[in-house]
């Protein structure tokens, strides 16, 4: 593919308020966890440069506010996203139950043309808590992800930096694949029809 510009991968993080979206993003980008993060208002994004299989990309990670009423703002920035991360809190059943409506709402607002093939990654956060506080089992979560179309699932702790890197690596791969497939489909009028030999094994979506 031509190097006419640096690839920017736009990733949106969604999920109920307090599940740890901001903490996950900060852990991934700055490798830190802090009690001082504030509840998110509106939306903010942070960039992160990555190399995926020798390809330089910039991930643009959008952190959003969890409270439902602020969701209608999403229209302003969901557009053009390459991957959506759905986060729930393993100690909070409700945040798990809401995953599907987060997904549906996103698909509508982002105006996704091909919802079945849009990449989502699911994250169950706060696995550092004691076992007896955990309300959503891994099994239950995996079952939901399977039913939503075999979405990749990760269990993380933003606090203790468990699995965060791994989760976002897959997010980046999914996003890159999505971005490239879009690029090809955008260029479908080109005389040369490039065959996408998708290496689907690197990413389950």
């Amino acid at each position, binding site marked *: 593919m031509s190097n006419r510009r640096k690839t920017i991968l736009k990733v949106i993080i969604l999920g109920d308020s307090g599940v740890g979206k901001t903490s996950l993003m900060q852990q991934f980008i700055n490798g830190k966890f802090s009690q001082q*993060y504030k509840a998110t208002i509106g939306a903010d994004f942070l960039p*992160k*440069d990555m190399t995926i299989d020798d390809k330089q990309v*910039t991930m643009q990670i959008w952190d959003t506010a969890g409270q439902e009423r602020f969701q209608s*703002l999403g229209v302003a920035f969901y557009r053009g996203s390459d991957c959506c991360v759905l986060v729930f809190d393993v100690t909070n059943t409700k945040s798990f139950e809401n995953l599907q409506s987060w997904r549906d709402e996103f698909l509508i607002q982002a105006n996704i043309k091909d919802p079945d093939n849009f990449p989502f990654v699911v994250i169950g956060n706060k696995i550092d808590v004691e076992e007896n506080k955990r309300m959503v089992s891994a099994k239950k979560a995996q079952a939901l992800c399977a039913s939503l179309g075999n979405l990749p699932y990760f269990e993380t702790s933003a606090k203790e930096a468990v699995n965060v890197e791994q989760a976002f690596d897959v997010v980046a791969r999914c996003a890159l694949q999505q971005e490239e497939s879009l690029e090809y489909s955008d260029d479908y009028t080109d005389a040369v029809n490039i065959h996408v030999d998708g290496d689907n094994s690197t990413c389950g979506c």
Partner: protein
Amino acid sequence: MVHIVSPRSFPPGKGQLLYVKSKVYVHVTSSKKDNVPGYLVIVKPFPDSPKTDLVVAFIPESDVSQDDVNALDYFDLYGLDGEENNFYGNSNGSTSSATDRGNHNGGGGRSNYPKVARFIERPRMSSMSSFAFGLAISNIFSIQVRPKTTTLWEGSVVLHPKDVLEKVPALFFHDDESAGTKREQKLKSQRFDPFAENSKGGLYWGGDRFVSCMRNYCVLEESTLEKGMYLVNPSKDDTINFIPNVLDESEVGNGPESVGNAVNEFLNGAKWRVLTGLASVTSFAKKQLNGMTQNGSIPAPIRNLLNQPQVRVVGDDFDSANVYLAKWALAVQEEAEKSRKQIVGNDYYRELMESELGNETTVALTPQEVSRARRLKPVSKVEWESQFDSSGRLQITMREVLDRVFHGGLEPEARREAWLFLLKVYPFDTSSEERQQLLASLYESYVEYKNSWKGDLERQDKDAYWKDQKVRIDKDVRRTDREIDIYKGGDPMDVETTGNEDPDDDAGLKNPHLMVLRDILFSYNELNHNLGYVQGMSDLVSPLYYVLRDEPLTFWAFARFMEVMERNFVRDLSGMKEQMLTLTELVQFMMPSLYQHLEQCDSGNLFFFFRMLLVWFKRELSFEDTLKLWEILWTNYYSSQFVLFFSLAILEKHSKIIMNTLNRFDDILKYMNDLSGTLEIDDLLVRAELLFMKFKQVVEMIDRRNAGIGFSAVQGDVDSSLQRIPISKQLRLLLSTEPVIQRENPREVGDPIG
């Protein structure tokens, strides 16, 4: 053919002219009629003066005797080129150009040494009565040359004295009035020289030769950091600081050099250049840049800039060169504005408004109006108390009190008492005794609210809404202002929690002040049942408690504040949308070209103001500045929606940078979000006040015009004045000091919270 005239003796009291340019102006104000015309000269004051003692001077025409006028005008015409018209044709085979900045050897026909000997009175070095000034070359640090770039603007030269406290005005070259320049242009057009420097595209202008002439008498090094900035006889340190060799010589010709050049160029061009072509810098360039900032090969001023925290952040992730550049441009702009403010003082803002918002004579602000828009020192506790008589009644009008607070804000010690008035917990027309009684009843009723939820254990068990709200408040309170001293510490995650493992319990919240915030929010959730707690409210209550430090009082102050702010939190967000729309209209109304640009970048919805408006800039300003902004907004002095003018002021301040460097939604959003921590509240408040006045004037003018009155006063063509200009209800509402109140609809049982 060169006649360097240097007689052993000069006429008494006179110096020899080495360079003259006529019709050079000092632009005293933005108004043409205040311009001061004069001559820019280089003079050798005494026959034996060394080069460092030569004087560069500006001599206003009004200061010149008739003899000197003759000498100056003659030299202006013939001084450097001689009298013959075909001078160029006769030159000794010279290939150097008419402007020849690179001509160091001084040989050839275009030496820029004088061809005629003329003398004038030794110029004055300074003057109390006119704009005359002179500087010995040894006292000039640098010369900034801004060539004429379009036929619209005059080129200019600014001398920067070594003494940083000394400032001399910029000199503008009015080429079309200058006989000497016109002759030069004519001579130049006789002779086509494809190698001339100016054939690269610059326009020939009157200042061109000033630099070449200076080169005869001193070393001029152009800074690689700022084009057109020439250091005069630079010291070694200056060279290191301003003419860095960012690129190691040995690397030239190798691969990385192109990147090095890119970075170098990027550094050079950052100031005020439209860099739309440079969309983003590769990560390689990023590393290069980061390396440079660390290994010290970057000049001190730029290093300082790069090390400013907010620039640092972007330098580190470097997602987008545009945002980075924009920030840089901002820093440069602020520096320039600061010195500008010092030079022209009060007139600064007036000029600013005129240059940025157009100066239709019909809506120009009067000097009185401009001088009203200023910041005063904050109201002290003593001053606050002195406004009340012995019975605690206000001795001056409420309007006077609000005026004073609006223009100065309050000192921390005055806040506790004053805020209760500003938030209408205390009516202004009460005595201290009445307030005491009021206080007692407020305490009592607060206890009532608090008990109503504290005691209702049954509901706390069953009601899902209540439970959700409890979790929500709890979660947000512990994420509120934890960097502020009283809210620090006492978190369950800091302290090993033992035994207390029920998350629905007090959840181990140990900080007593946070516990108060939580109780206040629970109580408010009870008081305003329809609205309930919504995210963002914890940000609003925390400063109130910080100042009042009393639970019941904070609760009531918060409840009053929320009457105004409820609009921001209603479920369908209609209140926020309405404000954002009003702001949009306001921007269109006041700054149409900026608005057009924003729209082209998909940013016409002003999305980035959402957070700022929702919690009144709490997240963008420091805690202390937030307190100040809020108390000023509470006065409703000009408008109950003054926060929109404050927002407009931010846009106005950054409009140039936004229009010049940012052209994508992401970039604009990032730039605006990153303004956090950089907003200069006093400057913005003055701008906001002026913007309000201007807005009001324009509305009044349109009203008069619409009413068909005063047509004669309106300049412009009659046709357009016949058209009514509509002013929307929203815009007109901005002139009102009555708060806009919007309440949440009744909440149905079982409504989702959201």
